């Protein structure tokens, strides 16, 4: 009998150590709305232990992520939701963020992870060009390439916020790839210009904007 009890305890012990908060999923994939500035991810859970659980604190691995709790104490059998808000900002591409929830049911935190992919509309490479002070004011190029839409560009325009820097657009591949040649008037003095790139899309879709930069600097030429 004693051996049988020991065997049962041996089998059950890892499970009993995990009793308490049970999350339906600790890792979630989330998709942001197009153009959204925030993404909200919800992690439902239930207290499956036989004692009340107090949520003590939350901690995230990024200042862009905050977790909110609808309340702090959960009785046995009670359910709740941890809501995680992610400020997208100027992020692009795949993202993986973690939130650690400290609770009274276990010493280590519950780790909640969400993954998402912020679509990149287009990329410009390089995003900036520069001339050393006194370098010949010959044109330098960037390539603008459509990434995340099936809708081709109808027209791409480039404007500089500084009249001493002139951008010129040339189509490399219809509706998808463009070269932007940038020419400074002179390279004697420090200068920083923002090149606003505006893409007009078909199918009635709103225009999209991106920035690139051109600057004149002291020091040796490197690009």
């Amino acid at each position, binding site marked *: 009998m004693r051996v049988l009890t020991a065997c049962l305890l041996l089998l059950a*012990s890892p499970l009993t150590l995990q009793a308490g908060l049970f999350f339906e999923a600790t890792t979630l994939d989330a998709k942001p709305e197009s153009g959204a500035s925030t993404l909200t991810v919800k992690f439902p859970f239930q207290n499956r232990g036989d004692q009340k659980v107090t949520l003590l604190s939350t901690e995230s691995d990024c200042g862009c992520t905050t977790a909110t709790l609808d309340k702090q104490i959960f009785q046995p059998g009670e359910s709740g939701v941890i809501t995680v808000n992610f400020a997208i900002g100027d992020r692009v591409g795949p993202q993986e963020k973690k939130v650690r929830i400290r609770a009274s049911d276990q010493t280590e935190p519950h780790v909640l992870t969400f993954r998402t992919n912020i679509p990149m509309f287009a990329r410009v490479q390089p995003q900036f060009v520069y001339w050393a002070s006194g370098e010949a004011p010959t044109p330098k190029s960037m390539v603008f390439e459509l990434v995340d839409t099936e809708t081709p560009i109808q027209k791409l325009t480039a404007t500089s916020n500084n009249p001493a820097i002139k951008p010129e657009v040339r189509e490399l591949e219809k509706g998808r790839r463009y070269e932007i040649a940038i020419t400074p008037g002179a390279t004697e003095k420090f200068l920083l210009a923002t090149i606003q790139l505006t893409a007009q899309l078909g199918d009635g879709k709103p225009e999209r904007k991106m920035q690139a930069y051109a600057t004149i600097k002291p020091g040796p030429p490197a690009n």
Partner: protein
Amino acid sequence: MKGILLICLAALVPALAQRWWQPPEAFRPRSALTDGAGAGERVTLQTVRGWNRPVLWVDARTRAEFESGHVPAATLLNEDAWESLLPEFLGRWQPGQPVVVYCGASCESSRRVALRLRLAGIQDVHVLEGGWDAAQTLRP
């Protein structure tokens, strides 16, 4: 009583074994993909000190964290407001100047900022090992 104690101790064996083989996620070693840079771009503070040339420090934390303390002459550049912060960075960066990015000790923002700087066209970009915890020793 002795028997019960023995059973309890025996019951701990698989639980401890499970913890050893499959530690809770919070205690698992982190991979380079989620916790920092690839081996080539990470630098220690000691390495940076040995360069003997001016470094442009980039603080990839939030504005609030930056304002509460940062490396002297560091510039704020993060993905919260990349487009509005990049011109400030470009205005201060000099051709050929190495860039060292730091964020909180356990965040990955520095790796992402370093990657975006490279995509923007700056090649000599590094990520500080130890992040802000290490960088704090540079404060006056």
